[in-house]
């Protein structure tokens, strides 16, 4: 039963934004990680979105509704900054340490954008629920 309109669409968006927030949190947490299982410093993860058709009822020939999903989580290949720190356990022969390519300013902006998108989607579904409740009161 699909009583709240567009709830599938919003559910997909909420999942996608939540995943994006998780990745941003992971980036921030690993902003100083110079040693990973692969050997090099931590590479920033980037999320990319794509539309996904919602399995829904016939739309009388119009454009079908689309929700969003995370298409891929890829590593940002740009090399991180090299910092001169001979005391660092991961310093190379020249005393330079390659830091992760995580820029905290970018990550914070991403965090805020993802949170705002999440809240916007929440208000959409809240509104849809209110509309459904109003419809139920017809005639009373």
């Amino acid at each position, binding site marked *: 039963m699909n009583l709240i309109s567009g709830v599938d*669409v919003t559910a997909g968006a909420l999942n996608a934004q939540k995943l994006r927030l998780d990745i941003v949190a992971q980036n921030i947490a690993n902003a100083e990680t110079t040693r990973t299982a692969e050997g090099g410093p931590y590479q920033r993860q980037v999320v990319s979105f794509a539309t996904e058709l919602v399995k829904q009822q016939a739309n009388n020939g119009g454009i079908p509704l*689309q929700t*969003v999903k995370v298409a891929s989580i890829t590593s940002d290949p740009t090399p991180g900054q090299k910092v001169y720190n001979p005391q660092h356990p991961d310093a190379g022969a020249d005393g330079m340490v390659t830091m992760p390519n995580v820029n905290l300013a970018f990550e914070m902006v991403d965090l805020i954008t993802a949170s705002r998108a999440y809240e916007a989607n929440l*208000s959409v579904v809240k509104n*849809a629920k209110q509309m459904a409740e109003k419809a139920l009161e017809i005639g009373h």
Partner: protein
Amino acid sequence: MGSGLREADGGWHRLCLTRPVMIEPIFQTDTYQLARKLLDVSALRQEAIASNVANAETPGYRRLDVAPAFDQQLKAQMASGTLGTAPTLQPTLAEDSSATSTKPDGNNVEIESELLAMNRNSVDYDYLTQVVSSNLKQLKMAISGNVT
């Protein structure tokens, strides 16, 4: 059944005897039928806004809205008076051609304007349910004779 009827037959209204549909006409006022159709539009618009907000950052996504052709078709039906009896006219979703492209990746959704549109749509929906509701309540009052 139509034969043998005469005007002098106890005052029965001719239409009540020959007309095959009795109840349908009380629901045929323009206002009521228009409000019903516009409720469809409003519900569809809410879904379009949900899709737009969800895809506010998807590259290449174009904003969706109710197809503007529906408005003209509805007006034409109203003018010709076939609103209640015409074959059902349903609104459809289409890409909004009046939106301007704002981002370099081709996405033309602005979350603020979507939320504003959603608020407006919500009030429209409330108003339309009020119109339909008060029509139905009036009918009920007329039938039962009770005022409450």
